């Protein structure tokens, strides 16, 4: 039964993926992409990875989808006449088809050729978990065993926002979405926002023991912000550039500080003292949640802002 379900999921993944790439107009493609993201969330649950499922739904489908749709909104103004990419006479089509099929064949071969053995690493994680300060293995991996990856990953996020800031500075024309002065929506928001904030806090708190954590919590926070943004609230982002930046960088800075603090002890980078591990991780997660939320939100809102006065090029 479950195999059938899996196969169904598999085929829907492939169909949605193909539709994403071929559906006309583009808007439909993006919709299929979001659907694909949701399907993926299901798949992740089937793969016993609820953390990823949450993240995929919130970030992969949610934030990415919103970003794409937002871009499409700008596209709308232009006459975007895309013809079908599939042209059987084009050599490019055939080369692409053959090489991607060959790739699939090779990967399949690799998959079948490789014996399935339980990885040693999982056991090691399990063994080291008690010393990690958290109970949930994924959080332990993310914020303790492989916290270095996460640190750099936050760096990637910051870079993305940084580039956004750079380019936003060039925007002389303000490109803001029309406000949605819908009283019903505003009423809904009044309910929804506290709820979402609560979900976010829960996810964060749960992260130490069960699926959830800073990313998911941050994503929910960002979603809240986007909703608010769409309904016309501009928060304080606009008023204080520097404060916004501080918020954006808070998580990264805290993480960095904690990482460096180990040096005082003569320990390697990112070493948490045993007894403080849990607390330190929580602090990091708190800061990260806030920052990730702000960053993800900014990814969406940044193009809608012109830069503040003092930084405008002369």
């Amino acid at each position, binding site marked *: 039964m*479950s*195999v059938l379900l*899996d*196969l169904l999921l*598999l085929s829907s993944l*492939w169909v949605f993926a193909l539709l*994403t*790439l071929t559906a006309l107009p*583009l808007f439909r*493609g993006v919709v299929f992409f979001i659907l*694909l993201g949701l399907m993926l969330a299901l*798949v992740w649950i*089937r*793969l016993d*990875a609820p*953390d*990823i499922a949450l*993240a995929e739904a919130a*970030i*992969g489908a949610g934030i*990415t989808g919103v*970003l794409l749709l937002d*871009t499409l909104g700008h*596209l709308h103004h232009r006459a*975007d006449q*895309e013809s079908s*990419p599939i*042209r059987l006479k*084009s050599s*490019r089509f055939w*080369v*692409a088809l053959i*090489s*991607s099929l060959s*790739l*699939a064949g090779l*990967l399949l071969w690799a*998959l079948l050729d490789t014996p*399935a*053995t339980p*990885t040693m690493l*999982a056991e090691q*994680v399990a063994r080291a978990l008690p010393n990690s300060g958290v109970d949930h293995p*994924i959080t332990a991996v*993310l914020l303790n065993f*492989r916290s270095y*990856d996460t640190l750099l*990953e936050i760096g*990637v*996020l910051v*870079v*993305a*926002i940084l*580039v*956004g800031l750079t*380019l936003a500075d*060039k925007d002389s*024309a303000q490109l803001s979405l029309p406000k949605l002065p819908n009283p019903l929506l505003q009423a809904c928001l009044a309910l929804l926002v506290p709820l979402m904030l609560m979900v976010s806090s829960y996810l964060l708190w749960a992260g130490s023991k069960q699926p959830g954590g800073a*990313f998911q919590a941050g994503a929910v926070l960002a979603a809240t912000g986007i909703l608010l943004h769409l309904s016309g609230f501009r928060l304080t982002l606009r008023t204080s550039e520097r404060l916004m930046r501080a918020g954006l960088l808070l998580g990264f800075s805290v993480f960095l500080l904690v990482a460096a603090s180990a040096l005082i002890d003569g320990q390697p980078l990112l070493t948490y003292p045993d007894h403080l591990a849990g607390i330190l991780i929580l602090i990091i997660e708190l800061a990260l949640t806030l920052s990730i939320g702000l960053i993800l939100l900014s990814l969406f809102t940044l*193009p809608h802002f012109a830069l503040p006065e003092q930084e405008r090029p002369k």
Partner: protein
Amino acid sequence: MSSSAVIFSLAGIGLCAIGLFGFMLHTHLIRKLLAFNIMGSGVFLLLVGMAQRSGHTDPVPQALVLTGIVVAVSATALALYLIRRWLQLSGSTELPEDDRR
């Protein structure tokens, strides 16, 4: 042996191939970006799927995928900034030297 893991590894392979196909085929920048994301999802599936075929849950690849998703969304956002900016300046969703042979 976990059949789910094998099936979704397979699914991942398919997504990889489809993504690559789209990436090669399209000149429309947003489509290319979509293809990239599909490919990325395929790789994530393969990463977790392959590791979990023995039936045991492996937190490490899952953590890696979480990292990967964040990286992918950063990259997508960055790409969208650039594409939007390009659109604004040139009014085109394709790069100038691309042709569709």
